[in-house]
């Protein structure tokens, strides 16, 4: 058994000892090899996953869906009790986590869910019913290479995998990463006195920085950079760190084309491709729950189907803005001035521009179709209900740091696979009473919990969208070179620094490095400080156990919602002369429809098939031999069928109903 502690929690020695004992208790009880008291590196996670499977062969199986560039396996646990219906044909809930390398809490909660389900099989009726009839697929860590960075001596908070990249496109790979200037093992930010700076110390909380507002007579006094030096001497700091692609930016919905960390193209990564190929091979997955840095559970989608806005930290955004121009260095204004007009050759500039192209042929132009970018209003209720239950079970009210889900997995599974798909960070900010009124967003947070998020104005809309999304650089004008110099963080969403700082202080979490003077090789005197990477995206490890139980209960709740297709009723009428009339009613006994509206729209959920197993020529009238319907609402809604067939008394005829997400049923009909 491995027990891992972070340095910052070492001081809680007594508490840790308590956890250790609890862990040993668990181990004896249910054959677990892990406790919930710490975050797990790859080897520890692997052991934990295998131990769960090995000691519970009745319910659990572990496999790998793919191997990363770093040689690590992406594990999937299959939890189901073998029975009459093969596992691959049962409706399944997929739980997947840790796409973003730094989001360790997701891994831990996924494992806790697995433990809860396995240990409760014998005693809990609900768990037994679910494992007997359904499947849980649990993938605790989609980005094991990225996650491993969180266990390195220096924490960078990188979300990406290890694919080498040329982030600033200067012909060199990974040549300028962060440097731990104050030797605290944390990569935070630097503030530097600068007359041209855009930022000043927040008068309300001197640990934080604000953008100066000249309209209020404020002046910028500081520039802010990521913690590091200019390793490649190009004028930028940390503009091309190790690693490449953020797995939750690499899927095909609202894909941020050509943006940093999004990968060279959609599904460019082994992790992404493995995941999609696995999804395509497991069409019985009927619902998806992910742990990640976007949310639709703590705050449900708006009545228009939009997700809540991102919740960044200003300090992080300001530092990122300092290097945003690194990938624009070297743009020469057209013709290099020297060339324009002077060395024209031939008829290069003669005005034949695009005229023939605009001369459209007679071919008909269909109106351009676009992919959906908001949740279909017919599906909205399912999301709202799930969110209500989530909040009830977990008690989480205030979202932590979040970002917009561009290229995120759970968006792909809803918009393109048509599955009910949820994402939660898995934890929330617990704010002292006085701040909940004032709110958290840049000192003006919405009251947490019950509010309706972001009315139309503030609602998140996806970059002009398309299933492929269209965040691409459109016309492609030539940006002018503005190397160096601090850029305006501009239109970005205001940060939640103030609320976040209060949360850390109130909970006594060591998640902020107080500003500390350091000598910098390029800037001279600087101060290093800010939020620590691990704590930005994860709660303290001692919260895992409690959060694990509540999320397991929520996962179990989700597994009770599946569509459930049945042949509810059959009737045979002998019309005489070898003719029989067969009537049948097919019902959906579950809560969810057999396909969400988006599943129908995207043509991704197969229509339910109703087939009468006779020879085609036996059918004289009524329905066809093979029939399909797109979707059937749940809670007992029915669909009627009627055939007039030739046959003889005593014939046995099968009536087969196959629903991709709602199981199968077979009725045996005897002609009489």
């Amino acid at each position: 058994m491995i027990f891992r502690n972070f340095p910052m929690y070492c001081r809680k020695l007594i508490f840790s000892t308590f956890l250790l004992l609890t862990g040993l208790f668990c181990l004896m009880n249910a054959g677990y090899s892990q406790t919930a008291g710490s975050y797990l590196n790859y080897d520890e996670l692997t052991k934990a996953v295998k131990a769960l499977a090995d000691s519970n062969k009745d319910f659990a199986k572990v496999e790998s869906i793919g191997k990363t560039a770093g040689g690590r396996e992406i594990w999937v646990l299959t939890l189901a009790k073998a029975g009459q219906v093969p596992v691959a044909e049962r409706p399944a809930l997929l739980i997947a986590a840790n796409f973003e390398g730094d989001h360790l809490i997701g891994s831990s909660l996924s494992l806790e869910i697995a433990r809860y389900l396995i240990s409760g099989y014998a005693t809990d009726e609900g768990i037994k019913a679910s494992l007997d009839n359904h499947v849980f697929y649990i993938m605790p860590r989609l980005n094991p290479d990225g996650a491993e960075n969180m266990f390195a001596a220096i924490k960078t908070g990188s979300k990406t995998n290890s694919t080498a990249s040329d982030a600033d496109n200067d012909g060199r790979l990974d040549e300028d990463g962060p440097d731990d200037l104050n030797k605290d093992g944390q990569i935070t930010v630097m503030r530097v006195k600068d007359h041209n700076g855009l930022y000043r110390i927040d008068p309300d909380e001197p640990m934080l920085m604000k953008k100066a507002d000249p309209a209020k007579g404020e002046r910028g006094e500081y520039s802010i950079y990521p913690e590091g030096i200019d390793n490649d001497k190009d004028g930028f700091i940390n503009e091309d760190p190790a690693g490449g692609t953020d797995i939750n930016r690499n899927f095909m919905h609202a894909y941020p084309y050509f943006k940093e960390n999004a990968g060279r193209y959609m599904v460019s990564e082994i992790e992404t491709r493995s995941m999609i190929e696995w999804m395509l091979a497991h069409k019985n997955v009927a619902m998806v729950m992910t742990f990640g840095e976007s949310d639709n559970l703590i705050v449900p989608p708006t009545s228009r189907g939009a997700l809540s806005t991102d919740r960044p930290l200003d300090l992080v955004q300001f530092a990122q803005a300092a290097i945003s121009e690194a990938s624009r260095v070297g743009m020469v204004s057209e013709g290099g001035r020297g060339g324009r007009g002077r060395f024209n050759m031939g008829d290069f500039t003669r005005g034949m521009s695009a005229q023939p192209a605009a001369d459209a042929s007679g071919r008909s132009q269909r109106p351009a179709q676009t992919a959906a970018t908001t949740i279909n209003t017919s599906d909205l209720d399912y999301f709202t209900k799930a969110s209500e239950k989530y909040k009830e079970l977990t008690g989480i009210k205030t979202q932590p740091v979040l970002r917009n889900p561009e290229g995120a997995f759970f968006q792909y599974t809803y918009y393109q696979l048509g599955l009910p798909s949820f994402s939660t960070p898995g934890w929330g900010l617990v704010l002292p009473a006085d701040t909940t009124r004032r709110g958290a967003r840049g000192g003006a947070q919405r009251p947490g919990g019950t509010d309706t998020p972001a009315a139309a104005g503030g609602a998140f809309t996806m970059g002009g969208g398309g299933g492929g999304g269209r965040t691409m650089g459109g016309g492609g004008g030539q940006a002018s070179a503005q190397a160096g110099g601090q850029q305006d963080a501009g239109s970005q969403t205001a940060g939640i620094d103030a609320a976040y700082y209060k949360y850390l202080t109130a909970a006594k979490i060591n998640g902020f490095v107080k500003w500390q003077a350091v000598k910098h090789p390029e800037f001279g005197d600087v101060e290093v400080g800010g939020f620590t990477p691990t704590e930005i995206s994860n709660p303290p490890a001692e919260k895992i156990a409690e959060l694990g139980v509540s999320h397991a209960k929520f996962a179990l709740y989700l597994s009770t919602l599946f569509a459930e297709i049945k042949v509810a009723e059959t009737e045979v009428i002998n019309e005489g002369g070898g003719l029989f009339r067969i009537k049948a009613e097919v019902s959906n006994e579950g809560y969810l429809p057999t396909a969400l509206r988006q599943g129908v729209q995207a043509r991704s959920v197969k229509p339910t098939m109703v087939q009468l197993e006779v020879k085609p020529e036996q059918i004289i009238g009524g329905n066809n031999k093979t029939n399909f319907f797109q979707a059937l609402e749940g809670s007992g809604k029915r669909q009627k069928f009627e055939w007039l067939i030739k046959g003889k008394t005593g014939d046995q005829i099968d009536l087969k109903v196959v629903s991709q997400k709602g199981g199968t049923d077979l009725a045996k009909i005897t002609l009489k």
Partner: protein
Amino acid sequence: MKTKRFLSVGLCLVIVMLAFQPINVIAQKYFSDPQFKVKLDFNRWHDVNELFADMARLEKAFPKFLKLASMGKSYEGRDLMVMTINNPETGPEMSKAAMYVDANIHGNEIQGGEVCLYTIWYLMENYGRIEEVTRLVNERVFYIVPCVNPDGRQWFMETDGGNARAGHLPVDDDNDGLIDEDGPDDMNGNGIIEQIRKYVPGQGNYRISATDKRVMEPVPFGEKGDYVLLGEEGIDNDGDGRVNEDDKGGYDPNRNWAVDWQPNYVQGGAMDFPFQLPEAKAENEFLMAHPNIAGVQAYHNSGGMILRGPGAEALGEYSGSDVRAYDEIGNNGQRILPFYKYMVIWSGLYTVHGGFIDWTNDGLGIMSFSNELWNSSQYFSSPDLLKEREDPNSPISGRKSSNFFDDKLEFGDEYVDWKPFDHPQYGKVEMGGEWKKFMGRVPPRFMNEELCHRNMAFSLYQADEMPKMEIGETNVKKIGDNVYRVWIDFTNKKVAPTITAKAATNNVVRPDLITFDGKQDIISASWISNKETFDYLNPITELIDQKQMKRLLIRNGHPGKSTRTLQYLVKGTGNITITYDSVKGGKVTKTISVN
């Protein structure tokens, strides 16, 4: 005397030598064409193995220039063969801009394969004979891929040709859990999937056309015909009560690329994710491994078009500088290829999401065209015929023209007439009334060599206009104590820029690099506005604000048909070596002496 005699003997010898010169040398010089080393046929359609065999013969005949390799395998395990044409004496592949030509991504759009084969053959047979061809082969690299969908091509060649557009990845078209289980069936074994008609006197809704007995036409409202049409030849293979509802294919290999990829419900045939198809994946891996590729041509058929992106309106028009370069090549293309129109895909043809040349243009920064080979207007290859076509009474007006040209030019080779057949389900019927698979999308065979040559000529023109950097004149002037001003002209005489505006915006091509190898300190580097007036007028320069003066990044590259002058102010003397290193525009170097 002796000298004179000696001279006359010498003269005689010369005459004799001339007379006995091998006949073919004289013939080449004054009379017939040279013999070809490799004899190929361009007036018939090759199946996949024949294409590859011809490529192998060419490689064997021209081993110095040609290298035949496989980019990967198709779904059914066929090779995706690529021919590299490179003259190793003029530098390794990566040091020269490359033109990538592929064809046949849609399995039934076959003649691009022949154009590719012709291109390899023509370049090799004429190397050393035609000066411009020799220069092109020396200056450029060519990657020629005659068939990127060999499963589709082979299916098209071996069968009736139905559904050969896609490849052969299994797709469940009718969503019944069975895959490709009910396609058409060639019941009479003549290699063609025909129409079925049944004679039902006075009970039908079709009749035989009065003007041409081969044509079935629907009867006018209120009248009765003698025939009903019963769909295409086939049976209910899977016994589900439906006929031919799940054939092979069911997707589009040209919608599986990673720019503006859209899911199936927006873009039919897109598959589940970009590069899902083994063919597209292998091809992309080849393209990404060859950043020297600066031009792409992807041959399709038909319609007579020279297409460029964007494939969808929402992507937005290219920026002005890219459009100018495309227009110059496209407009000249219309002159090289009569009956072809230069058009933008979405506005001229139809909207395509996730198409190949959107990926190569936007995702890889390569100027890309796609020609739709063959326009049936080419039957009307004179102004008189074009005019006569408009007269409804003419035998070459409207649909009648197909039969007329087939009868008179190909002696009826492409048409299958109605013949009786005993159908297991429908009883006594007639099958026929169908064109063979080659009709419509490809030219009559005798016209194909012209198609091959003209399209090749366009692609060679595009290849010639790929960027090519040169270092022009240089100038060194002492302007202070141990301080020198160095001017260097960089020129790209070609139409295409070294980096397109789109590539620069998307940051998908490594920036051009200007490196300075010398022991001098660089005080400044700048682009100067006008060399000629610099010494007399206000010397405005565009200062290059980069930290590493000895390795300058030129992110948006060097425009087409232009010269830029770079000025260094340096401290110190000695030789400096300047290199302009462009991924797509080549690498050039010049040493300048400063003193």
